[in-house]
């Protein structure tokens, strides 16, 4: 057995944790800037959660509607996030997304095409124009495969020049990082274990990019895979970085509700974008009842107008099925609670009566396949049953918009694990483009940081020893089965800190979490270190508990409803709260404290992109007065 001195050890310039879209794009950028880069991922290379993304990547290329540009995209993103977004991130995202998509094409991606041979773009909830570059309904797979193949291309280049594929970029697949290592205030590396052998591993690196995705596995009904245990969120917290906006979790309105074993698996929004409608058990197209005041003038009020929109978008308003995700999820939730749900506890999503069978199979092949194989339902002949599912966390590591740098020197974060870009609610399609834009910026940020370093931070043997003891502890205990603790956490979060929240329920959840913390300290893992899933889960539990506590504490403090945070006891959106961000940090590595921080005001030229009338819905009177002052001067 290894001790601190003979643990497998690697030196790199940049260690990227996570091999999804953001991680791979960051690694590609770091390598292109000449840095020796390691990609560490829990799964096999190319299996990351990004493959689940279906709809597309939002980028204002204007290929389908030439009216589209970055300013329109920026406005849509801010509206979708209820103006809580980090506006600089939203600006960079809207401006750079087209370049990031085009670059994929030069690396071999094959998007669907328009008649004149450009990348085709599709409609999506919250986007004013057709904007999502897509490949059928498997865009995420295309993105991950393209980036994976780009990494391979770079390795082939290195093989040409250095005779070694892995001279400058190497993938450590099925390898989990459990601790970030620091030298004083600075990042100096990372500690982890190989899932396959159970052997431990130390990375000695001055820069670490977190790209670990989200936290969905803290919920029972989720579209996320087992990997989504909030590792990056927890690693950042434990390294002393801040998390922001953790109360905002997106529940995707349409997840499968039956059979029970696939409950939560996503039904892409493209079903609605391509004509699918939502109905309750009375056959009523209920979304018309749920158009909120702020969107009243942008959405159709009659079925006729909504139906005309699919063929004539210039002269009609869009159907309310395409409202931002939080609105639709809440509407479905209300219908089911009011007893108008489908037999299996969802509502009906019908595309079979709206499009010919052949057209459905052509436009939504993987949905057709998914329902046929998993539920034995033919979506060309009968409606689907769908309900909300935990899908995405808007909150994450607080980062600098331009460099993706976290508060801890040497730590960077991109993609779902970072926070701010999407405000209180993410628009569909903005995730894939977010990964690309900020993945690249994180890789570049890390490279620039290294260039500015006077001396390489050192890995402290003491920290490695602590991490080793922590990682091996569950194997040395014969305690409770970790699966039971996990299930209780999932149930608690789902029921008490779910789509609709109440102060007393969230309080109750926090009590349960305190008790679970104790149980996590005692869980044991039977068996050897070789590919032992019980042990892996025991280690992941630490992260899930930390992150769940952040979500619950922030949810308790924010006394308003906005985007992915709905309080039953505070149902309205409050302009006062728009100026406040909630910051989570851990002083001792196990408890969470939350503090308020003021949101910086938006740059005047960006504010000027909006009508004053619209701004009135979001800003305080004080902010509006300031705005008037600027306009007059």
């Amino acid at each position, binding site marked *: 057995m290894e001790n601190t001195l*003979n643990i*497998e*050890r*690697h*030196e790199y310039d940049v260690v990227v944790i996570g091999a999804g879209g953001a991680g791979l794009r960051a690694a590609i950028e770091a390598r292109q800037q000449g840095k020796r880069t390691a990609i560490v991922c829990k799964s096999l290379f190319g299996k990351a959660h990004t493959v689940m993304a279906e709809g597309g990547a939002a980028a204002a290329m204007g290929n389908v509607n030439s009216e589209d540009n970055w300013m329109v995209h920026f406005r849509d993103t801010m509206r979708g996030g209820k103006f809580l977004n980090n506006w600089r991130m939203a600006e960079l995202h809207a401006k750079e997304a087209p370049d990031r998509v085009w670059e994929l094409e030069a690396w071999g991606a094959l998007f669907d095409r328009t008649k004149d041979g450009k990348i085709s773009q599709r409609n999506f909830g919250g986007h004013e124009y057709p904007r999502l570059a897509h490949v059928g309904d498997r865009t995420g797979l295309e993105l991950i495969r393209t980036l994976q193949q780009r990494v391979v291309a770079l390795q082939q280049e290195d093989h040409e020049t250095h005779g070694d594929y892995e001279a400058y970029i190497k993938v450590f697949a099925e390898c989990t990082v459990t601790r970030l290592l620091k030298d004083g205030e600075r990042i100096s590396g990372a500690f982890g274990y*190989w899932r396959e*052998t159970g*052997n431990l591993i130390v990375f*000695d690196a001055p820069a670490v990019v977190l790209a670990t995705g989200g936290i969905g596995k803290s919920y029972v009904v989720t579209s996320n895979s087992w990997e989504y245990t909030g590792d990056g969120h927890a690693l950042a917290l434990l390294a002393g970085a801040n998390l922001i906006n953790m109360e905002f979790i997106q529940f995707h309105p349409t997840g499968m509700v039956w059979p029970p074993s696939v409950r939560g698996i996503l039904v892409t929004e493209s079903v609605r974008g391509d004509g699918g409608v939502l109905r309750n058990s009375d056959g009523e197209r209920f979304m018309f009842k749920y158009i909120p005041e702020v969107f009243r003038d942008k959405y159709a009020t009659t079925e006729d107008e909504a139906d005309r929109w699919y063929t004539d978008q210039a002269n009609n308003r869009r159907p309310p099925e395409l409202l931002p995700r939080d609105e639709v999820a809440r509407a479905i939730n209300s219908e089911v609670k009011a007893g108008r749900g489908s037999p299996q506890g969802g509502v009906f999503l019908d595309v079979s009566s709206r499009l010919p069978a052949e057209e459905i199979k052509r436009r939504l092949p993987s949905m057709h396949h998914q329902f046929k194989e998993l539920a034995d339902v033919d979506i060309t002949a009968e409606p689907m049953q769908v309900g909300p599912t935990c899908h995405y966390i808007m909150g994450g590591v607080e980062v600098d918009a331009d460099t993706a740098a976290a508060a801890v020197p040497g730590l960077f974060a991109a993609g779902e694990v970072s926070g701010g870009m999407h405000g209180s609610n993410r628009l569909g399609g903005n995730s894939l483009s977010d990964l690309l834009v900020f993945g690249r910026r994180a890789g570049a940020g890390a490279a620039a940081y290294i260039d500015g370093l006077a001396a390489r931070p050192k890995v402290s043997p003491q920290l490695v020893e602590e991490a080793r003891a922590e990682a091996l502890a569950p194997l040395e205990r014969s305690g409770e089965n970790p699966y039971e603790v996990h299930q209780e956490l999932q149930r608690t979060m789902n029921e008490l800190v779910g789509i609709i929240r109440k102060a007393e329920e969230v309080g109750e959840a926090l009590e349960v979490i305190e008790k679970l913390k104790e149980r996590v300290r005692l869980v044991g893992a039977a068996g050897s270190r070789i590919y032992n899933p019980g042990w892996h889960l025991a280690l992941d539990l630490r992260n899930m508990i930390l992150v769940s506590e952040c979500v619950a504490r922030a949810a308790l403090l924010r006394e308003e409803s906005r985007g992915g945070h709905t309080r039953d006891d505070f149902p309205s959106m409050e302009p006062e709260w728009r100026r406040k961000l909630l910051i989570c940090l851990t002083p001792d590595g196990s408890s969470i404290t939350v503090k308020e921080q003021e949101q910086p005001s938006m740059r005047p030229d960006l504010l000027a992109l909006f009508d004053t009338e619209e701004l009135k819905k979001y800003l305080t009177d004080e902010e509006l007065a300031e705005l008037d002052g600027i306009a007059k001067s």
Partner: protein
Amino acid sequence: MTQTTPDASARRQRAQVKVRTLRADRWWLAPLLTFLGLSSFLVYGVWAILDGSYYVPSAEYIAPFASPCLATSCPEGARFLGLAPFGDWYTLPPGLLILGLPGGFRLTCYYYRKSYYRSFWLSPAACAVQEPHGKYTGETRFPLIIQNVHRYFFYLALVIGAILAYDAVLALVHTPLGLGSWILLLNAVLIFGYTLGCHSCRHITAGRLNHFSRHPLRYRAWTFVSKLNAKHQPLAWASMYSVMGADLYVRLVAKGIIAFPYA
């Protein structure tokens, strides 16, 4: 640069499962049926080549296995366009002269290759069933590398197909109310369906191009061929049995065994 690598663990071995397959379904049924089907064709083919009654002068029916009839031993009316290019020295059955063309086409056909590799050579008999051979080199070397001539057989098969169609039309003109004429016509249609759906044909029409959009006509042809190609297996069997059936029918009429009106 310090780089230590993990110990090479003792995991370079496959899971030891001592049986040929763990499949519990009747995986042997398909190769067995294929074996019987293809064998019946071979047996029939040998008999048909040796059989002399391949022409019905009264109805202008000629058995497909003997067409085109090019030997001097062919009856005057049975000769293709009246030709007999081989001269008197050739005394073997006339069918032998042309047998190699459709035979070679089917033998090198991508579908038939699959079916006989599976059912005759058991390589593999069915998916995930271990094959009995110790060594395998596939189509990388002689003789199987010759399979690559398939497209030339395709060109020749087109000619044979055209001749069978000509035969059918001739019969139809001569005996429009004869069942045999219609059988020959159906056979010609199926043969064309099979021949045009060939993978080589698909390649030649437009499969070899990378820009369909610059060759709209060829692309349309490719789309049509692709549709046939998707049915290549059923068409292979249908046309194999139709050619056997039509051949047998003509011979039975020629032998007088079938003698009802409008035969």
